[in-house]
């Protein structure tokens, strides 16, 4: 207790130093005056009295020193003094300070930017109170996929378990909102059980959230708007509360608005009671369309709750073998469900790259510190000979490092902010749900500070150990020039530089893999990236378009209407756009012998309307595409892409061949429907990250799914085409909405963002690390020339040719390069071992990659050495010899 008081008082002293110093002086002066008064009263003269007073008081300065020793914290005081001294030195040596702080800021900033991204995707968690007490509940089947849970199971689970304070379920569905005097809009709806808001702790912005009463059958339908749609559709009008709108045609009263960052793991624009969810059966155990989560009672450990849920599903699998035989429970904390794990290899590799950059920058500054320390040998020797202990000198050097790291950390904060902003702006709008939040918070700052401390350990502590131990006598005798320590320092410098190069090799090797796996461009890539084609998705509700024929009829009519609009050159429809995925089916070929359907190869299958390729602006390679819809026999036609033709019809003309496409999970085998190939289409990339696969196209009419994308090519600006599309859809059916309206150029850009960002990020990282290493090589070479000026002068004077001097410099540089390169190969092997990329065909350690890396490094080393070497050969021997 007393010890704490003393500490607090001492800490206060640090702050109030000046005031307390003044107080002491005044107090002592008063004391002396009183003593003097006493002596005068005893009959002394004024001067005698003053002397006597001082004698009896003791030495004032000793008293003050004693007093100070007890005050404040001597260690902190000392460090504070060292830091102030450090700041003075750094200000004097401005070029060094700016260079070192800049290098550190880049390293720390890049590291922090990567951490911010990593943190947003893994550790941040949903913005809900006590999220670790909320478990996500679902089922997994034999394929260990997230299988969801059915309403029946959910209700039974709720009754059967005691671990949970509350358990809620939800499902997402697209709905059309209308009936408010605006054009119908298709938005994502979240049907949630009445207690879902309560369990998560979701706060409403306006009005109220869902309540358990809302979720009873027979209650008036209510809905809660997300802030986004409230602003975009209703102009943030608070009067929307109590208003009735139509959701999928059903009157619904708006009762509240929730924040954008609601805490609910959903990007929904409107929340509706679960009781209104379509196709929700209160009797059947399948299909499992709900997601569920529950908040634990305070005293229940996670494991016992998970065990309880497990036991429940085990019981179900016995009681209901038809539906639940292979279904097991899966319970995870809700944040693990919606966020990645830091321990995933991709994230580990990501963060390792971040640390490589910081290590390189710290090693770079370490070399700068060593070079600077060498210039200060004399200063340090003098201080040591005057009685400074090695620890004292070390502390002084360390504090300089702390000040530098502080500057670097501050700069790094700025670099990270800019980096994160660039990263975000490269992403399409709404590419990520709100809970991947990149904003700065305390933990990110804490990470930045820790990394800054780490850099101090590398760039300040290690050099300080070296610099603080000069051989005093030797240094003073040698007139302050390097002396014995220079040799050791050179070894350290080489070590740091080699480490830098090694780390750069790891990143360069990674980059060479990236470059080599980059996809060869396809002729279609450029053609489809156009603003002349507008696309939009139309979804036909099952209630009004029950039969496939009705759906086919709708798209046929829409096509005819669009075709008639002036300015529209061509229109078509597709199950999936280029770069937007597709479904895989098994390919069977007539006369191919192999009749085992499970062994048949997988091919991408797309359903497209007539004139699909024409609308995209692609010419057929051979044959023709689907002609007019409704033509008899066109349902049994197929188009394949070049890759499929090359893969499966090597020695035959594919046109006229017959193939069949079978669903992958074909549970009830039906005889294959044979299709005749009528044309070969150019390869079109269906997925951004992959080269095109073998693909087959079937006519849309033969398998019209409820949701399809309409494409229009026209001579008008995209906005006009969009309007025409909307008008024609509305004219056919006023209750329908067109959504995800984009030009093909947008489609391409949206699909490629992830690749683009990761490529840019990796390139930047590598460029920074290689750049830093080159600067490091340059700095060391330049410093070497300065140090060896005398020697070079002598050699030149004795007739050594310039080439000899150049060789001398290059020899050192390449020695460092070789050590670094070899170490780098070791690290790369380790890297590949730890984070294998799943691309076994291209390895970072194969000879071609390594040759690329080596060539790059040799080139950059030569560039880095060019300037110092030129300077060395131009030295005037007479001046150089006299150089001290």
């Amino acid at each position, binding site marked *: 207790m007393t010890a704490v*008081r003393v500490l607090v008082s001492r800490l206060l002293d640090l702050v109030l130093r000046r005031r307390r110093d003044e107080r002491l002086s005044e107090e002592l002066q008063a004391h002396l005056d*009183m003593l003097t008064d006493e002596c005068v009263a005893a009959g002394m003269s004024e001067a005698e009295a003053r002397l006597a007073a001082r004698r009896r008081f*003791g030495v004032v300065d000793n008293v003050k020193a004693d007093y100070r020793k007890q005050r404040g914290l001597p260690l902190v005081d000392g460090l504070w003094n060292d830091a102030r001294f450090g700041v003075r030195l750094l200000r004097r040596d401005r070029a060094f300070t700016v260079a070192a702080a800049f290098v550190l800021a880049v390293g720390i900033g890049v590291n922090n930017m990567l951490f911010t991204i990593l943190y947003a995707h893994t550790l941040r968690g949903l913005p809900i109170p006590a999220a670790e007490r909320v478990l996500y509940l679902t089922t997994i089947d034999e394929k260990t996929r997230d299988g969801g849970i059915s309403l029946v199971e959910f209700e039974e689970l709720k009754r059967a378990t005691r671990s949970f304070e509350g358990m809620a379920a939800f499902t997402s569905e697209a709905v059309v909102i209308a009936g408010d005097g605006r054009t119908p809009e298709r938005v994502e709806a979240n049907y949630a059980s009445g207690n879902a808001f309560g369990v998560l702790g979701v706060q409403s912005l306006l009005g109220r959230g869902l309540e358990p009463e809302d979720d009873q059958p027979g209650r008036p339908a209510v809905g809660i708007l997300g802030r986004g749609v409230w602003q975009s559709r209703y102009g943030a009008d608070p009067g929307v509360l109590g208003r009735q709108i139509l959701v999928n045609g059903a009157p619904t009263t708006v009762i509240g608005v929730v924040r954008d960052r609601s805490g609910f793991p959903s990007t929904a624009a409107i929340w509706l009671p679960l009781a209104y969810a379509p196709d929700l059966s209160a009797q059947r155990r399948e299909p499992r369309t709900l997601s569920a989560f529950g908040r634990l009672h305070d005293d229940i450990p996670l494991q016992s709750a998970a065990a309880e849920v497990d036991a429940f599903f085990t019981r179900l699998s016995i009681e209901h073998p038809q539906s639940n035989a292979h279904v097991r429970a899966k319970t995870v904390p809700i944040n693990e469900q919606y966020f990645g794990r830091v321990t995933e290899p991709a994230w580990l590799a990501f963060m390792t790259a971040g640390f490589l950059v910081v290590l390189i920058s710290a090693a770079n500054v370490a070399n700068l510190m060593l070079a600077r320390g060498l210039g200060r040998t004399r200063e340090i020797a003098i201080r040591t000979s005057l009685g400074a202990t090695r620890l004292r000198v070390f502390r002084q050097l360390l504090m300089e490092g702390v000040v530098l790291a502080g500057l670097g950390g501050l700069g790094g904060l700025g670099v990270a902010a800019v980096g994160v902003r660039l990263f975000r702006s490269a992403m399409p709008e709404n590419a990520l749900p709100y809970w991947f939040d990149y904003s700065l918070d305390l933990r990110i700052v804490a990470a930045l500070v820790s990394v800054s401390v780490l850099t101090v350990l590398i760039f300040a502590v290690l050099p300080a150990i070296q610099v603080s131990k000069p051989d005093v006598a030797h240094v003073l005798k040698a007139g302050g020039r390097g002396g014995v320590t220079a040799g050791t320092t050179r070894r350290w410098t080489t070590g740091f530089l080699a480490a830098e190069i090694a780390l750069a090799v790891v990143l360069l090797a990674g980059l060479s893999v990236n470059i080599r796996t980059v996809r060869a461009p396809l002729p279609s890539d450029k053609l489809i990236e156009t603003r002349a084609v507008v696309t939009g998705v139309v979804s036909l509700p099952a209630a009004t378009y029950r039969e496939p024929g009705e759906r086919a009829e709708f798209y046929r009519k829409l096509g005819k209407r669009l075709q008639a609009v002036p300015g529209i050159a061509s229109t078509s429809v597709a199950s999936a756009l280029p770069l937007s995925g597709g479904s895989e089916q098994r390919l069977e070929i007539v006369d191919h012998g192999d009749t085992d359907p499970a062994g048949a190869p997988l091919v991408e299958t797309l359903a497209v309307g007539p004139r699909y390729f024409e609308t995209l602006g692609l010419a057929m390679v051979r044959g023709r595409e689907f002609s007019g819809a409704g033509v008899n026999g066109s349902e049994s036609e197929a188009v394949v892409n070049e890759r499929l033709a090359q893969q499966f019809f090597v020695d035959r003309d594919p046109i006229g061949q017959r193939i069949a496409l079978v669903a992958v999970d074909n549970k009830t085998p039906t005889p294959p429907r044979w299709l005749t190939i009528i044309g070969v289409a150019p390869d079109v990339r269906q997925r951004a990250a992959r080269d095109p696969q073998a693909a087959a196209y079937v006519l849309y009419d033969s398998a019209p799914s409820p949701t399809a994308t309409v494409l229009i090519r026209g001579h008008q600006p995209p906005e006009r085409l969009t309007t025409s599309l909307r008008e024609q859809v509305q004219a056919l059916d006023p209750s329908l909405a067109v959504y995800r309206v984009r030009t093909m150029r947008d489609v391409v850009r949206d699909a490629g963002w992830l690749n683009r960002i990761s490529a840019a990020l990796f390139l930047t990282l590598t460029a920074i690390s290689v750049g830093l290493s080159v600067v490091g090589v340059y700095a060391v070479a330049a410093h070497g020339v300065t140090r060896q000026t005398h020697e070079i002068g002598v050699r030149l004077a004795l007739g050594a040719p310039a080439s000899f001097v150049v060789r001398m410099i290059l020899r050192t540089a390449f020695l460092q390069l070789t050590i670094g390169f070899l170490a780098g190969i070791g690290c790369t092997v380790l890297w590949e071992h730890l984070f294998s990329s799943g691309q076994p065909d291209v390895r970072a350690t194969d000879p071609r990659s390594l040759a690329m890396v080596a060539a790059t490094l040799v080139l950059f080393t030569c560039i880095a050495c060019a300037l110092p070497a030129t300077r060395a050969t131009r030295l005037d021997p007479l001046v150089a010899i006299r150089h001290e």
Partner: protein
Amino acid sequence: MSPPDAEVPYGTLDLMVLKTLAVLSPLHGYGIARRIEQVAQGGLALNQGTIYPALLRLEQRGWVRSAWGTSENNRRARFYSITAPGRRQLQAEAALWGRTVSLVNRLLEDES
């Protein structure tokens, strides 16, 4: 065997200051020093300045507190007074001191 200018025994200055303040609070540094010298009746060589570090120690521990005031001859001075924890501490220390002294005395008597 007892020179008139004996050193202040180690660690006893704090106790003396505390005791002085227990009798005469509030008192300024000069007053404390004078009082100790008076009680010692010239048997102690006190560098009056040394009581200031002692006062700081006591204040940091919360055993005394201080405030500016005016001395009897109208000088601005800092006045120290003992606190309740200070009185408890004084009792404890005084008891300890008493025990220590009697122990040392007994030892010395034994030997003689």
